[in-house]
């Protein structure tokens, strides 16, 4: 959790220094992200992130410079290996990857691997049609998938009250005949337990679970956002008092905290170095990865592009 926080701080700093063009801070959501991802069995489970899941990447042991490479504008999906790390590529379509988790879960069920999928999305994303379709499919087929909603109070400037009719994403689960639980998203142990219970249920054929982790985005939506336009400092301060890191630190001794800080500092410094060492992809890669094999049209466009460079 502390690694996630310190790396998040570092990313914001790097953005201020002009290294990262933009960044979407996860500050305040570390317990929800780390607590849930820590419950996964990386031998058989698979996670589907959106664009604010640094804590998930940390907990899953994903190559963090590769994860942050997205924000460095190097490659949209990130530069980590999604298959090896069990974390699908960074996805910027709100709600877009949720049905993927359902498909993956069906695949795992057909292969009888005992694996489960977890898909991360926000309170804003819960409004998308795809999320409904995904929950309904998962309910009909009773698939091993966890719908992990980080209800962080805001979708950019829109508060949950103006977003989620009825006020609770977890409460939607009943309508699909599936489990729905709300959990204190700033309590890392509670999140871990809820996720583990959902994973156990999924593996036992008990079907999907909606987990709504109640938390708060302490920072701006992204580094170009100005929360002062839509929420009060009081609100932010109240939630800062419920900072998941303070909560966790309270359970630890001063020595433990110091050791954790030291570890975090080491990781952050390594990731920072790795990140700065990442070069831009070679320009020829503009034409790569569109298909397994490039088409004649692409080869021709690439040739013309090369000629115009040489001209």
């Amino acid at each position, binding site marked *: 959790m502390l690694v996630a926080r310190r790396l998040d701080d570092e990313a914001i700093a790097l953005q201020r220094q002009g290294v990262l063009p933009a960044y979407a801070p996860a500050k305040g959501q570390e317990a929800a992200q780390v607590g849930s991802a820590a419950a996964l069995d990386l031998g058989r489970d*698979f996670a589907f992130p959106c664009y604010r899941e640094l804590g998930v990447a940390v907990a899953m042991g994903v190559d963090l410079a590769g994860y942050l490479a997205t924000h460095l504008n190097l490659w949209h999906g990130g530069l980590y290996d*999604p298959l090896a790390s069990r974390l699908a590529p960074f996805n910027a379509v709100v709600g877009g990857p949720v049905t993927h988790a359902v*498909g993956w879960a069906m*695949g795992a069920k057909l292969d009888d691997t005992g694996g489960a999928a977890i898909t991360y999305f926000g309170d804003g994303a819960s409004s998308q049609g795809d999320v409904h379709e995904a929950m309904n499919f998962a309910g009909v087929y009773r698939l091993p998938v966890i719908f992990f909603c980080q209800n962080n109070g805001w979708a950019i400037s829109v508060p949950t009250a103006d977003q989620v009719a009825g006020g609770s994403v977890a409460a939607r689960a009943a309508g699909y005949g599936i489990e729905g639980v709300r959990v204190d998203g700033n309590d890392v142990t509670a999140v871990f337990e809820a996720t583990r219970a959902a994973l156990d249920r999924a593996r036992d054929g008990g079907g999907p679970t909606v987990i709504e982790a109640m938390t708060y985005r302490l920072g701006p939506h992204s580094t170009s956002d100005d929360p002062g336009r839509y929420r009060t400092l009081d609100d932010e301060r109240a939630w800062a008092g419920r900072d998941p890191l303070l909560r966790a630190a309270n359970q630890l001794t001063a020595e433990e905290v110091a050791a954790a800080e030291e570890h975090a500092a080491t990781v952050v410094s390594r990731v920072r170095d790795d990140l700065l060492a990442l070069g831009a992809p070679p320009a020829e890669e503009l034409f790569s*990865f569109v*298909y397994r094999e490039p088409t004649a049209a692409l080869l021709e466009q690439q040739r013309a592009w090369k000629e115009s460079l040489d001209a």
Partner: protein
Amino acid sequence: MPEFSLQQALNLALRHACEDDDRVLIFGEDVGTLGGVFRVTDGLRDKFGEHRVFDTPLAESAIMGMAVGLAMAGWRPVPEIQFDGFSYPAIDQIVNQVARMHYRSRGVLSMPITLRLPSFGGIKAPEHHGESLEALFAHVPGLKVVSPSTPGEGYHLLRQAIADPDPVIFLEPKSRYWHRETFDPTEAVEQLPVGTSRIVRPGRHATLVAWGAMVARCLQAAELAAEDGVELEVLDLRWLKPIDAAGLAESVARTRRAVVVHEAPLTAGLGAEVSALITERCFAGLRAPVQRVTGFDVPYPSGALEDEYLPSIDRILTAVQTTLEYRRG
């Protein structure tokens, strides 16, 4: 040699694909118990079981999203969307996810998905059951798009699409589902590579370019023209992405005149791309501007007006005449 309708040929292709590769999965609305509203998946559920061939709830976006997840888990999904016009709800998944996951993951994740899409008009169906979406799909990097014109082509192209490692949108010309032809599916045919067109009738006065149901119509037009001594070459484009620019250029370099025919509306239809490609490659030899005979810039109309909307043999022959009579200035 046995005789097959296009619908039967596609059914056979699916059956053989399932037999040859046990990672192939078939799903969509009503494809299981019912065997599809056009019976293209008829009998497959009984043969391969409800795990390989299954019905989905009524939600096209989730059908395609599920295909993405299944592909990530190592399966080879062959979803169906029931009709052309109902692929619009799935466009986000198709464009933003299916077409890009391979790219986004720098080639780590494959998307060997074949979307079967009963397409085009000609059967006087309700609204949204007669659309031509090839221009939309062909514009999207990462997708391949193909449409068969005959049962034999249907069989081989569907097998090829399913075997392909990239996502393929397979547009089935529904007005040709019941058209019959003899061919031997067991015969090892020389498989033209992905992206190759086929000259289905050689000629020397002008090239007619078409795909799907319009190929048969162009052949009819060519027969009529032949009675007047005009020999039209008919080129079945087959792959609408990647487009066979070389094949188009080769044919029109010989005939020096071209007419492209499609059902979709004129403006920004795929005929514009075909016209531009031919002009770019054959300008010096071209005797007349490429003619486009297409649907009009109107919503696909009701049955009462459908025959007026679709490119008729008359309109094709008028365009042929225009191109043959064209004099530069």
